[in-house]
């Protein structure tokens, strides 16, 4: 069932004996997935027409404080030098968006370069530089909408730099970290940054049909509900686009470490103190996480089960004649502590969603922290070899 179903009048709902989303055959989803892989890897620039003007205004308001913050920080730390520096970095990220990075398997993809800019310049300055590049692309080349400029800047110029810089600084903190570790941290930063940005873009798309539709239920802007938009955006990004971003970020950082290592240091030195920068980056990461947690009840707007996360009964409902026996057998083996993200003792669905998100984040952070601690303890041994 689609999210905007309730808006149909009862009569029309009766005429419609056809419930498309739940019964859409596998090939359609595969087609859509493939189309999405091709399309969304060529860039995430949202054109005008996909988001309602209201959403565009909200996204603009979300991006605005980052521009103010960025310009202020730039003036404090770099003074008059800032204008040419930002201009050149904006020009660089414009040009880098046209590079085709070849992937294993013969496909190629574009990267945004936003993660790289954040690692070299710090996320605040990168946010301004990438925003300028996006503005020129929208105005001059029609890549990305003019009304949607706030949304595009928030997704690409704010989320990617701040998330990837936070991941990079967290994993590569300390001057003693090895080159290999820094390259891996940079690549992972790009990967996570772009994926988070893709997820947020999908949420922006996905809330459109629920919020803005005509009297007969026809969506006025992006037509897909969250249940379609999120997998359609996030899966191709996880598989292709984020890999491209990771590859470009990692390759360039590896090259710079080999050829021109002081460039990376200089970038880190542009911040008041690298360590404090790391803290601040972490704090921003926590803020983003908190925002995502609060936004978790958005999932309630999404009907159905997340793509690829079907249980045995849902697979049967999806029209799969025979449920794989292994799934049936193994499905019972593991009972999730929070089945369907629901805490039964709490009546409020929204609240339990938020709580589930908090618990999920806590568990994830714990696992990653343990992993990082393990890595860190192995580092001296590696160095002595």
């Amino acid at each position, binding site marked *: 069932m689609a999210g905007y179903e309730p808006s149909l009048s009862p009569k029309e709902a009766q005429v419609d004996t*056809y419930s498309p989303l739940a019964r859409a055959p596998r090939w359609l989803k595969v087609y859509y997935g493939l189309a999405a892989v091709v399309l969304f890897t060529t860039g995430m620039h949202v054109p005008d027409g996909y988001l309602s003007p209201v959403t565009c205004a909200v996204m603009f308001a979300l991006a605005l404080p980052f521009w103010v913050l960025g310009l202020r920080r730039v003036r404090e730390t770099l003074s008059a030098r800032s204008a040419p520096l930002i201009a050149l970095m*904006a020009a660089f990220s414009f040009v880098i968006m*046209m590079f085709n990075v070849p992937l294993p398997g013969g496909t190629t993809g574009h990267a945004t370069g936003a993660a790289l800019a954040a690692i070299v310049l710090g996320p605040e300055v990168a946010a301004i530089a990438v925003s300028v590049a996006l503005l020129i692309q*929208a105005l*001059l080349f029609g890549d990305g909408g003019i009304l949607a400029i706030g949304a595009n800047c928030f997704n690409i110029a704010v989320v990617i730099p701040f998330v990837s810089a936070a991941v990079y600084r967290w994993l590569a903190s300390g001057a003693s970290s090895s080159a290999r570790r820094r390259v891996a941290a940079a690549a992972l930063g790009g990967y996570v940054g772009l994926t988070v940005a893709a997820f947020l873009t999908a949420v922006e798309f996905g809330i459109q049909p629920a919020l803005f539709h005509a009297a007969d239920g026809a*969506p006025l802007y992006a*037509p897909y509900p969250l249940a379609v938009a999120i997998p359609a955006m996030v899966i191709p990004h996880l598989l292709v686009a984020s890999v491209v971003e990771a590859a470009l970020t990692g390759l*360039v950082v590896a090259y710079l470490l080999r050829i021109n290592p002081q460039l990376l240091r200089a970038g880190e030195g542009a911040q008041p103190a690298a360590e404090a920068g790391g803290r601040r980056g972490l704090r921003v990461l926590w803020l983003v996480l908190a925002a995502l947690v609060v936004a978790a009840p958005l999932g309630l707007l999404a009907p159905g089960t997340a793509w690829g996360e079907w249980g045995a009964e849902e697979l049967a409902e999806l029209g799969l004649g025979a449920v794989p026996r292994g799934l049936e057998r193994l499905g019972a083996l593991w009972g999730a502590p929070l089945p369907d993200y629901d805490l039964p003792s709490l009546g409020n669905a929204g609240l339990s969603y938020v709580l589930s998100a908090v618990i999920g984040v806590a568990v994830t952070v714990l696992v990653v922290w343990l992993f990082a601690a393990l890595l860190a303890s192995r580092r001296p041994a590696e160095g002595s070899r």
Partner: protein
Amino acid sequence: MSRALERSLGEIGARLEQSLFAEEVSRRAGLLQSLDPRVKVVTTLALIVAANLARRAPAIAGLYLLALLLAWASAVPLGLFVRRVWLAVPLFTGLVALPALVLTPGPVLAQLPLGLAVTRTGAVTVLLLLLRVGTSVSLGLLLVLTTPWPALLRALTVLRVPDTLVLIVGMTYRYIYVLLRLANDMFLSRKSRVVSRLSAARERQMQGAIAGTLLARSLHTSGEVYLTMQSRGFRGYGQTLRPGRVTWRDCLWAAAVALVAALAVLVAR
């Protein structure tokens, strides 16, 4: 010869060509070229907002026809104006929107094999989306094609874009060409020295090296540009020519656009 290299080269060339074309059209004599850039920026924005607020396909189609008319009156080559929008829009938006034909619930319009059906609601949705995207892109293109870049940049200040940012945008535009040339040269010199097929890993490494060199050059150039600016007396802010006067023609134009935009939004609400 590697495909990715070839493609990167092609795209860089296409970008340069596109922007040169925009420069040429903006200097022709025409209706939109004769208007004040500040008024044009505001009115274009108003028309795009109207195209996005309108809820009926005919209203949006009307705005697109208006864009075509304006293009004709402004000596913009119509064939190119139509092709540049409608070759790109269906490729991206069309493919993205296609599944919505069957995925949107509603009364059945046409039965397809495999138990699928195109719904009326789905067809309306796809049509609306395509029209909206096409019209918005066309209106934006019209503004850019008929306004010289420096004038457009100056006009941004009416939208309260800070002077520092306008200065940065202007510099960025200029250095995009410098860096594009540099990237083009690096790709070309590499291409001329490669005879065999490169492995994907080698190619990736090469692209990383080119991007890294470009980054280093950008940072280096920014330092040099700063020194140059300082030696010429840069004091931390930019100066622009005083913009021209808004004439009665501009006011008439703004009033007409306001009327059309209001009509498109309010019709059949």
